[in-house]
């Protein structure tokens, strides 16, 4: 008796899970579907069956070269992630293994910077970028994305490092490892799953970041977020072309996410299921 109940519960849970998953996925699906419609079809009403045209993609590529913003996205998201890791690994190391009375406060303070609406610091940052010539440069964008995501990177690494027994690091110290060697040969390899998932998450966040990327770039450094946005303006809305541009922009990160999902999930639940 109990078994049938549990099977029914399982069925309900499965259906519910699928429903919620589809609900979340629907906008993406609809964007992809719309990108294969003609413009009249796209505004005609909700339909999941496109005519299967590729003309939007051709036209999007013809209007604005896709590869330049694509490369900008790659460079900026990888660059900001690597710089953030180089800063965050030692920072998280010191907070995890030689904490002071203030460590918790500093962590909270770092996180609190994420609670401030980005627009609150738009003017000062814009002015600094203008005066230092960083506007519309990949370097400027990389710096800003590094700083935006740094608190999250430090937090995640801190959590992973805390799981590593301190005695192993002490053993390395006894074995004659310098601080640098301790971090390179012992800590980093042991924390690799955590570092990898932090890296993946940060690449995704940087890839999708649209507040700063749109506001601080024009033509030269514009990444894919700005590329999508450029299709939503002057001549009125062209839904099909906008959808094609969006699909092109999210495809790389979606594919990367798909291949790395096991690593991501493992990293994000690190410590919870030891």
């Amino acid at each position, binding site marked *: 008796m109990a078994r049938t109940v549990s099977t029914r519960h399982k069925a309900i849970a499965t259906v519910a899970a699928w429903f919620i998953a589809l609900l979340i996925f629907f906008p993406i699906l609809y964007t992809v579907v719309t990108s294969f419609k003609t413009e009249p079809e796209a505004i005609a009403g909700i339909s999941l069956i496109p005519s299967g045209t590729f003309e939007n993609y051709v036209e999007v590529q013809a209007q604005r070269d896709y590869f330049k913003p694509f490369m900008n996205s790659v460079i900026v998201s990888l660059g900001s992630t690597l710089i953030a890791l180089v800063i965050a690994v030692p920072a998280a190391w010191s907070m995890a293994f030689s904490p002071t009375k203030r460590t918790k406060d500093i962590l909270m303070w770092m996180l609190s910077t994420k609670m401030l609406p980005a627009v609150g610091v738009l003017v000062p940052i814009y002015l600094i970028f203008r005066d230092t010539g960083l506007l519309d440069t990949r370097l400027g964008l990389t710096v800003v994305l590094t700083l935006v995501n740094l608190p999250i990177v430090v937090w995640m690494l801190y959590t992973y490092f805390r799981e590593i*027994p301190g*005695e*192993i690091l*002490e*053993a*390395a*110290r*006894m*074995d*004659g*490892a*310098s601080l640098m*060697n301790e971090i390179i*040969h*012992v800590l980093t*390899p*042991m924390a*690799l799953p955590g570092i990898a998932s932090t890296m993946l998450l940060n690449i995704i966040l940087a890839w999708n970041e649209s507040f700063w990327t749109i506001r601080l770039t024009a033509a030269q450094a514009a990444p894919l977020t700005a590329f999508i946005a450029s299709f939503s303006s002057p001549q009125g809305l062209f839904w099909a072309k906008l959808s094609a541009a969006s699909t092109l922009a999210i495809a790389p990160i979606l594919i990367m996410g798909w291949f790395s999902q096991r690593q991501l999930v493992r990293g994000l639940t690190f410590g919870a299921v030891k």
Partner: protein
Amino acid sequence: MEGSMGQITLSKVAKSFGTTNVIPEIDLEIEDGEFVVFVGPSGCGKSTLLRLIAGLEDVTAGAISIDGRDVTSEAPARRGLAMVFQSYALYPHMSVYKNIAFPLKMAGEDKNAIDGKVRAAAETLNLTDYLDRRPGQLSGGQRQRVAIGRAIVRQPGAFLFDEPLSNLDAALRGTMRLEISELHQKLATTMIYVTHDQVEAMTMADKIVVLNAGRIEQVGTPLELYRSPNNLFVAGFIGSPRMNFVEGDEAAKLDGKTVGIRPEHLQLSKSEGTWKGTVGVAEHLGSDTLLHVHVDGIGQVTARADGEFALRHGEPVYLTPDPSKIHRFDKDGQTIK
């Protein structure tokens, strides 16, 4: 560092964590080649003392010198010591070979020299067949050997062991105890060994340091501590089963505020003796018999008889303390000499 000596001196070493004074002040001399055991109940500061010597903790006051060289503010790696941790602390992402080679690699030795030393250490510790494995694929005893291997390759001035056997089962603990003792015979290097197990202390040590609440209660050879403990604490801590303590009128009769007598120094008889009691629990171990006797006016007394001693629960028994083996303590718990 090779062939360095391991004479270690602690002078007026103190350690506090915040306002907690873990080690008030300790002076200690460890000779080169000695096997010294720090023993005491948990929280007595023995591990902290070892970590101070290792350099993993900074002293609050005092000085530590190794072979006459002041190392008080030296980094752990520069003290020429090797340590074996309670949790083994092996590098889980490295093979056994790489684990053992790590200290040599850090010392910048060349590949051939490293290879020779790692293989020699593996040979000594019966690890040759496991060099390619990861620590996760080894048993507790093998992991312990890898940890020891990692310590010996560097030929340190002294080995520090922090309760290295406490994670092993009883049988393996006995074997590893012998192996470590043999290793000490072979290498003749100073070893400092921390344990809460007085049997380990008694069986392995040249010199035992009994610690209690961050203070040294007594330093001596195992038999010195057994025969003439300085005070009640050492008397109660060293020896198994534990020494019996008698207070009150019976103690006064024997000229002490407290009187101690070890279970093996009580003569047992079914018919006559100084103290009459009733057997509570009788533990028949074959090689000897332990009787937990309730004696009127004294309380619970443990007595040990060689071989088999056929008495059961509830039967009367007479106990006679060997007068030459009685320990007398004053009101402060110090031995009356």
